[in-house]
């Protein structure tokens, strides 16, 4: 006698302890196996792209802070570089080095939260994420010393950075950079060879190489699938050609590879900061830019390697004080399009882990 079963719909709803932000997944389950999944987002839409058309180029910088609120420096940097490319504004050298230091520190902070949240979803009861938040607090203290805020920095300006660093910044940063590799080794000791983590994340949620290239994924998600592409090497911006660093690449494209790629990127960021500290020169930090900037008519696409992927700004200008069109290429949204293919066939517990390993931030997805 066969038992009649039917699949049922489970709503992993917008307010859930482990979706990173307000994201809704309507999954169809058969027992524990996921048969189908439909993502619903848009709960955090604030209309940034439309609001930006009525503000000047300088006034748009605080709006870009609020896109990926865990990595604000990178957002600022991408936007400011796009405007400088459009209007042809030079940037002094000390400002370039300061920008690189801030961007790499921000990459460290963002990856710490990404890895910590992933391990939290695996069930390690908040111990790894609390250790990583302790390191992130040290980075946030450094940022607070420079620009006065801990989350929405508003630090970069068109043509440089807004303030020069105070004199206790460099000793504190040197001390932090010296201790950080030791802490990364501690995290590896805690969980990298843990059998339970290996069993739960090796081979789970594989993103094949062709699919990753076809959906134009970027960032650690792409590199974990075996494609060696990093905008800092392919299309170098700022002064990245003067540093030497490696690009960690995974092989299979499962959750463990994405976790491993982020840990290695943290080590590479520490390396870049050390080199930047040695090469830091003196000078001014902002070039003279009028408050109401009238860039020439045209369009530009400026992109950087943000912690979550390739963040790009597409600006169209018509020689007025506000941009005519302001579009953001958000890496989290593009990486998210492969979620359905990665989840189908796995169980409910894996669905949460796979979603956590892509590392999205809803501020970017919804804008």
């Amino acid at each position, binding site marked *: 006698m066969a038992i009649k079963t039917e699949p049922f719909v489970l709503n992993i709803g917008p307010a859930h302890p482990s979706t990173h932000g307000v994201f809704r997944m309507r999954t169809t389950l058969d027992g524990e196996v996921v048969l189908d999944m439909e993502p619903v987002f848009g709960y955090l839409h604030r209309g940034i792209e439309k609001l930006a058309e009525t503000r000047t180029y300088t006034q748009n910088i605080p709006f870009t802070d609020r896109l990926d609120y865990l990595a604000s420096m990178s957002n600022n940097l991408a936007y400011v570089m796009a405007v400088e490319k459009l209007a042809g504004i030079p940037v002094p050298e000390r400002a370039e080095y300061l920008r690189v230091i801030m961007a790499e520190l921000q990459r460290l902070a963002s990856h710490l939260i990404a890895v910590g949240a992933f391990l939290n979803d695996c069930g390690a009861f908040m111990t790894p994420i609390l250790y990583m938040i302790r390191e992130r607090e040290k980075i946030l203290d450094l940022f607070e010393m420079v620009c006065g805020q801990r989350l929405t920095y508003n630090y970069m300006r068109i043509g440089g950075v807004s303030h020069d660093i105070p004199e206790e910044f460099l000793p504190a940063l040197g001390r932090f950079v010296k201790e950080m590799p030791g802490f990364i080794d501690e995290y590896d000791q805690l969980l990298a060879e843990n059998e339970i983590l290996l069993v739960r994340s090796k081979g789970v949620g594989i993103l094949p190489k062709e699919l990753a290239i076809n959906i134009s994924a970027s960032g650690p998600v792409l590199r974990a699938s075996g494609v060696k592409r990093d905008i800092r090497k392919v299309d170098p911006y700022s002064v990245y050609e003067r540093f030497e660093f490696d690009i960690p690449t995974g092989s299979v494209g499962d959750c463990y590879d994405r976790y491993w790629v982020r840990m290695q990127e943290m080590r590479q960021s520490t390396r870049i900061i050390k080199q930047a500290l040695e090469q830091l020169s003196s000078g001014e930090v902002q070039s003279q830019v009028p408050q109401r900037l009238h860039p020439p008519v045209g369009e530009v696409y400026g992109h950087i390697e943000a912690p979550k992927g390739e963040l790009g700004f597409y600006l169209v200008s018509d020689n007025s004080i506000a941009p005519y069109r302001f579009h953001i290429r958000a890496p989290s949204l593009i990486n998210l399009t492969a979620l359905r293919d990665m989840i189908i066939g*796995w169980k409910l517990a894996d669905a949460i882990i796979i979603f956590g390993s892509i590392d999205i931030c809803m501020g970017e997805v919804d804008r």
Partner: protein
Amino acid sequence: MTTVETGFNSGSSLASLPPDWPGGYWLHWGVFVIIILAFVFLTVLIFIWLERRLIGRFQVRLGPNRAGPFGILQPIADAIKILLKEDIVPAKGDKLVFWLAPVVAFVPVLLIFAVIPFQGGALLADLNIGILYIVAVSSVSVIGIFMAGWGSNNKYSLIGAMRTIAQVISYEIPMGLAIIGVVLIAGSLSLTDIVAAQNIPFILFQPLGFLIFFIAALAEINRTPFDVMEADSELVAGFHTEYSGMKFGLFYLMEYAEVLAISAIVTTLFLGGWRGPVLPPVLWFLIKVFAMFFIIVWVRSTIPRVRIDQIMGFAWKFLLPLALINMFITGLEVILLPEVLPWPIIFLNLAIAAGLVVLWSKFFRLGGGRVEV
């Protein structure tokens, strides 16, 4: 092996009380019921406080410290909060089943303490099938969990309850088989006899048995790494999502009372019960129970959670064969080598345990996990 004295003596003259102390059958029963209830409730309150402070210290932070000095009154504050909450019953759920579930889940846990010796002879009922009684009674609380999942009329609760039942039933078998190893060495099912036979604690004679029993017990009581039942980051709270008020309080108490029961059973079977050199026996018992609790909390704060099908695979493919082999080897040793000095046997057992763990790890293979849709 049980006839050799090696200096792990049984302490002062208070070590053994007459079986019906203080006198009379019903007075003995009444006094011990009060002692057991007081012990369980007080220790559970201390466990709640200790767990939160310990996990805080493992995570480089302080635990709760606002309610009373060092947060000692925190469990009492929690209890008052739980009692004052509104008791919500789902409208379409099965009301009788919903109401009975916490009771059916909690009472068997209290029944376990009837046979655990706090001192020589200081227990409610000196059954000569003590350990069999424990295994039988502890299986009844699973029914309570299933009743809770069913009566809540909630998909999340039902999934949580089904997972829990599968897990608990699967892990009872390695647990029982590990206990048989101890019973073979001691020669009796009664817990007082098992404690009396431990001149050297059985953890040295049965390292593999201890490991299997400990892991199976963690799975029985739904603690990390096997806590899919209350996986906070997946299903919101498992089978007790819909409970509030005193019913939730009973589930909460049940979880910590089960931890206490497992610590007490492990202490009695493997660590020597109340035996110890200088201090009074009750104090030794408490020290050992708290040491086991420390290890359980330590494991909870470090290790991630295992997926449900991997839990089942681990029980049936790894623990069960090892438990059978352990029972077989122990039986051989008891029959063939009864009069040998203990220390070579201990080294032999440790070597066999390490060898088996390494060998079986090489052969152990879990399924892939992905289903073709």
